[in-house]
């Protein structure tokens, strides 16, 4: 037992001594070490590895548009981009890919090879193989107003006049030929009379126009009616021509 204890103690002492020697020499070596930077260029140092970055702006384009690639490298002797070939170590280039492309850059130098890449997404229109879901084209406002003209009313009346009936027929034909068009019919009154009654009268005017279109075959679900009464005016003068301007059913595209 005693001999064994003695053996362990001896081992510990040796170990402690070795550690302390090592620690002392370590300290000493650090304090007096030579800074290689202070000695000027070291021709024998291994070359640094190249660095490389590549970006694209914008990252996503429509077919036919172009994108600007921009790359920066360091410590490289030759730089290549897949699909483009050898390029300068730093540079920009405008490209117009026809499909989504991964631009992969390889920078080679004495220190090795570094790679970088950027993906440019190209939005290609869906090929018109499938039929379009619906014809959402309402056409232009100008074409609409040329064919669907506002109708005007006599004073305190919501019956369509002969000229309004003709206009409504023409409008109905246009709307039948352009099934995507939805219409807001606004009812208006001149500013004589009382606000509440005129709102009800404007409702009757807009509904009279709506009824004419529905009778001529336009689906009722495509027509929306709003009465503005005398709350919105097309003109504000105090004479018959102005009042006539305000007594109307106005057609607008319900976009």
């Amino acid at each position: 037992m005693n001999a064994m204890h003695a053996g362990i103690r001896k081992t510990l002492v040796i170990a402690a001594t070795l550690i302390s020697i090592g620690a002392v020499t370590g300290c000493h070596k650090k304090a007096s070490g030579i800074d290689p930077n202070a000695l000027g260029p070291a021709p024998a140092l291994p070359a640094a590895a190249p660095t490389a970055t590549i970006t694209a702006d914008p990252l996503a384009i429509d077919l036919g548009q172009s994108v600007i690639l921009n790359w920066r490298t360091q410590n490289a002797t030759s730089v290549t981009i897949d699909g483009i070939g050898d390029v300068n170590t730093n540079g920009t280039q405008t490209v117009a890919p026809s499909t989504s492309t991964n631009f992969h850059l390889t920078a080679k130098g004495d220190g090795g090879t570094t790679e970088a890449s950027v993906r440019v997404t190209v939005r290609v229109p869906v090929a018109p193989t499938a039929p379009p879901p619906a014809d959402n084209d309402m056409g232009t406002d100008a074409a609409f107003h040329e064919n669907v003209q506002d109708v005007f009313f006599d004073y305190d009346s919501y019956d369509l006049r002969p000229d309004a009936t003709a206009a409504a027929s023409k409008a109905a034909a246009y709307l039948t030929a352009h099934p995507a068009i939805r219409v807001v019919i606004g009812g208006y009154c001149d500013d004589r009379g009382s606000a509440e009654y005129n709102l009800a009268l404007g409702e009757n005017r807009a509904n009279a126009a709506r009824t004419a279109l529905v009778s001529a075959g336009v689906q009722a679900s495509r027509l929306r009616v709003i009465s503005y009464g005398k709350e919105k005016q097309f003109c504000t003068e105090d004479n018959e021509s102005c009042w006539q301007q305000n007594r109307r059913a106005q057609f607008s595209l319900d976009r």
Partner: protein
Amino acid sequence: MHRLKRTTLLWRAYIGCLETLLLLLAGASALHAQEGFKTETSSGVSNIRIAVADFKPASADPQTAAFKHTFDTTLFADLSNAGIFDIVSKSLLPQAIPGAPAEIKIQQWADAPTSAAMVAFGNFGVQGSKIICNGFLFDAKNLQYPQVLAKQYNEDASDDSARQVAHRFADEIIFRLSGGSQGIAESKIYYVKLTGANKEIWQMDYDGANQHPLTHLGTVSISPRISPDNSRLAFSSLGHDGFQIRMFSLVLNRMVNFASAGGTNLSPAWSPNGKDIAYSSSRSGDPEIWISDASGNSPRRITNFRGPDVSPVFNPRTGSQLAWISGRTNLPQLYVMDIDGSNVQRMTDGGYATSPSWSSNGQFLTFAWDRKYGPGAPGGQDIYVMEIATKRWIQLTHDGGRCDFPSWSPDGRHIVYANSPDGKATHMKIMTMLADGTQKHELTGVGADMPNWSWK
């Protein structure tokens, strides 16, 4: 000295204690002669001559003078507006200002030149953050027991409080001296205020003070109608689907729900029990009168006739009839029916009639009427009152430009309305008058329209 009283027709409903006999005499004579029915009395009933003393300052607080001035001015205006008093000019009052019953020498006020039948006086002071006000009403003809009324008020010290205290004291005096009808000095008026291209709903006191906005919806909101208990305001507002009924809670100070419906929905009106709303709805394709509950549920259609039907108003006394405007025979006319749609009666015989309001005693309609409507026709749109039982009417405004949206005061003695001297919609302002057409004066500047007087 005694001006003829022109408000008799409005008095007949009141059973008074002071002037019962005179009122009954006046009522019996009210329906004879003149166009339609008569609003003058030939019985020589005079308005009560009342002296309104400036109140005596009761404290040295620096705020007292300003608040007391507001109080004195408001009290004097309230009693002047009431339409039942002959107010003694302040220059004819005795020099000494009484502040309490012990300080008044009542004989001085009864003698010429004051010659008052009644004297309102008292004291007014500010103590700490409170207004303390004592008001008295003395009968100058009863030297032994002159006191009719004594009231004490204790309110937070502010200009608005001073005005409200004056309104409350004025209403007490009016209640005692009018034969029991409630004063209106504490009532409110709701109206449409033009704000650029938009219209918002505003509120003011009955005398035009304290004008302030309620809604901030940024669209065209019209036709405000206050509920009988002053808790909710129904109106109509332009949105994506046209005009719809909207509801504002004055208790919560925000919009609350009202079920929307198809078509244009317009001109709400409260039933006197506050449970139902009548309005114009074109959900069926033609504007008709509908009634739903106050949340817009359980709608039922009342009218069924081609043409605009709009602007309903309940009989506030019975709740069982509606007056409204219908264009079923072309130009809009005034009609009355039961709320189940039966017993339709046409009230006007031509012209262009709009905007009815029904008096609280159920006897009268006021409305806007252009009797010779049409291009080049003479005359204009004026305010009329019609006695429903006889269909006889009187014209209250003359040659003052376009008038519209008359609304009865709760006591049935006043009518508030909108007026534009040159007829332009943007020049509308709110006016008030006695129900016989006298004492017209402005409550607002231009840009105010569609007034609606609260129910109490």
